[in-house]
């Protein structure tokens, strides 16, 4: 799983249905701008994740302010996606645990 994919899935798991630009904002906020998403890359990933059945297009939430034109497309995490995300996080956790045990990383002095 690529960093971008992981971040998109995290953003959707965290903040519910989001539209494309919303995903980008959420990802950049949480990573302090270290992970940036261009629209091309983002939608390429969205198309792929949709094909894999991990996310799904949904109607705009009722509280979304209407911005004129056609309604935006929102994306929501599907159970298969949530599952894949959890698997990935667990794998990462295992890696981090192993690294700590071997003293490969230290906790930051001020936890």
């Amino acid at each position: 799983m690529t960093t971008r994919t992981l971040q998109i899935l995290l953003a959707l798991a965290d903040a519910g249905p989001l539209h494309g630009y919303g995903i980008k904002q959420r990802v950049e906020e949480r990573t302090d701008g270290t992970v940036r998403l261009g629209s091309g890359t983002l939608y390429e990933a969205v198309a792929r994740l949709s094909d894999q059945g991990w996310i799904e297009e949904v109607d705009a939430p009722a509280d979304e302010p209407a911005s004129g034109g056609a309604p935006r497309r929102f994306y929501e995490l599907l159970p298969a996606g949530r599952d894949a995300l959890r698997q990935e996080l667990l794998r990462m956790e295992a890696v981090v645990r192993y690294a700590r045990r071997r003293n490969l990383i230290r906790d930051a002095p001020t936890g």
Partner: protein
Amino acid sequence: MADRFIRLLIRLYPADYRARYGDEMARFHHDARAAGEGGIRYWAALVLDHALAAFRVRRRSRAIGGGADRGAVQQGRHRFLARASGRGVMRDWVADFVYGARSLRRVPGFAFFAVLTLALGVGATTGVFSVLDRVVLRPLPYPGAERLALIGIEARHDPGSVGPLSGPLLADFQARPGPAEAVVAASGSGVVLDAGAGPEAIEATRVSRGFFGFFGARPALGRLLTEADHEPGSPKVAVLGQEYWRGRFGADPSVIGRSIRLDDDVHMIVGVLAPGFHRPSEIAEHGDLWIPLRLDAGAARGTFFLAGLARLRPGATLPALDDHADRIVAGVYGGETPSFVVGGAVADYRGAVLGDIGSVLGRVLAAVALLLLIACVNVASLLLTRGAARASELAVRSALGAARARLARLVLAESILIAVAGGIVGAALAWGAVELFRLRAPPGLPRLAEVAVDGRGLAFCLALSFATVLLFGLLPALRATGRAAAVSGAPTRRATAGRGEGRLRSALIAVETAIAVVLAVSSTLLAHDLLRLANEDTGFAPEGLLAARIDLASGYDREQWAGVWDRLLESARALPGVTAATVATQAPYAGTRMASTYRPEGMEGEQAQFVITLVTAGDYARVLGARVVEGRALESGDDDSPPVAVVNEAFVRRYWPGTPAVGRTVASGQEDEPVYRVVGVLADVRTHAGQEAGPQVLLPLRGAAGPDMELILRTDGHAAALAPALRALVRRVTPGTPVSRIATVEGLASEKRALPRFYTALFGGFAAVALLLAVVGVYGTTSYATRSRTREIGIRLALGAPRRGVVGQVVLRAGAVVGLGTAIGLAGAVLTSRAMGDVLVYVTSRDAASYAAVAFLVLAAGVFAAWIPARRAGGVDPAETLRAEG
């Protein structure tokens, strides 16, 4: 502006993807820009991001299409993924080729013309290029050949040429070569050889130190010349040329060490040259016998007789060598430079070797390129026409759901079939052309044995023709399917070709006709000229003439020559079968032309003119069969008291145009030399193939007799049979005098004309191919274009148009297009062939017959090509035509 740019970027994605995410991506940017993003870095990142993403999307859609086991994942979510068929790629291609072959079989005319055009283009171009490349263009077979330069003096009477060096000049050049690596020189001279079987006159070449090493020559037997051989006083040695060794000495290896007499000196044969040695023709005219040049300290300063050749150091320039040559000349002669020496002179050797033929070849190569261009334009316009005719078929297929890529592949398969077939036939034609060339080429053509189809040339021609076929095959298909997608499914059965397409096709036909006419006219002019050369009117009757070259120098003194010639003439006239005999410095097609300076009457104050001088005994005109135009010919009683001369028509044209010549005078250019009174004018006699007979002065034998002349006999028909009797006669009358050659003049002529004849065949063949291509191209394209208008013609007839009118209109339109192209082509030919003026001898560059023949053939082909299918379309029941597939 920004929005439009983003829309443009979004077009990078496949259509379905675009339909799904395009608006979203646009809105994303809207949001981003509303949030304050922008600037150069933003836009650069944007372009890169979309390019990469689009690439990934496209790759993924293909990858998924290829793998059947991922079908479950796809679940038909995306239409664009479902497009690709599940079959193997190879099986698709086989099917496409089978389909392509079938569809080509339905249009045999198109297939035939396309393949024929390609084959002719590739075959003729590769064939001619291969021959020219091997025979002429390849660098001379010497080390550092591109750096060779002729070196010598500039003579006042011959500016612009490189004159011969004197002995001291050569010595100085060799001692101080300056910008040259090495300098060598050679000088030819006639010698009398006695190898034990009586005297023979042959040409020997004296060569300077380092001559053979300079050219990388090797011995086949024995050794070549060494430094010591050039020392005055060392034993005299000689080296035999490979062919002379085979011809004269029967390839006898025991010649090494044998002694032969050359003039009065005994020389020892020390070696035989290896067969690979190519004589540097510009400085060594003969390659039979090579002897070392010996320059002693007192070498004559005033005798200029050595043809010099230098090899420049890498990086050195010709002008630098020229400056150096000037300095050497000034250094050797100081203030005592002979009055006719202007300074040093140099010239690029390759240019000197190629000479006039170099400029001809440049044009031939241009013609070769044009031929290939015609072939390509030809095929392109055929393919465009075919593409237009298939447009509705492709549109229907596209509308029925066939993917665009798949349709493109169908068309591609058809194009590849044509290209491959044309390429194979073309390669075979090239091979055949080269083989024909080798069979028919006159012997003595350089590097004939090496001539073969040139791989690079063939590859280039094939690549160009393939590219043309693929490009112009695919272009209409892509356009047709693109349009079908735009009207989303409603197949339009168009009755006629679109306006734009029709124009493009007409333009192509016109362009192609124009190029073809230019090429065909140039080639026809050249062929016509060479044809006239091969059948030239020489101004004399060569049949039954026998010529023997005899050299009296070794046996008689200057005062005896005239008397000896008279004795020889008298005996020769008494030979049975001989009707007349004469002696002349030059026989037709043989001997060297001698020029002297004269001042024709009326030009006394001006510079003396170089004019070919022919010393002849009486009867010269009668023996040759040359016409006396004015006055009389020279007679046997004429001598130098008073001095008389006969001139030829060319002389009168040049110096006394339009006035009678008899009674006028020609003064010799030398001081204290006689003033000749002209007693007659002879018609021009072309004694050198392919050259105008320049002005000539004929002087009587008595008073101007030389030692080395031609005895020419007019026989009653069996010239060759008289040769032994003539040889016996010379031995009887002048014992010990060598006869260097006895030959019939017809034999000499055919030897000299072999090359022009051969070039006639070459260019004639080329002109024929060019004309054939032009006709085939115009016919093929026009007829196919007209046939694709069958439906239109049917509709017009069904609507009640008169049959003759419709057919006439179609033919007229085709005729107008071809006529326009022909007119442009003729104009172009007038311009381009002006540059050929100096190559053409017998016809002018405005030779009307050549222009008319080409124009007529091309126009006729165009009109005929339109008329046949138009008449057929006009003859069918209109209802049938309408039902037929457009």
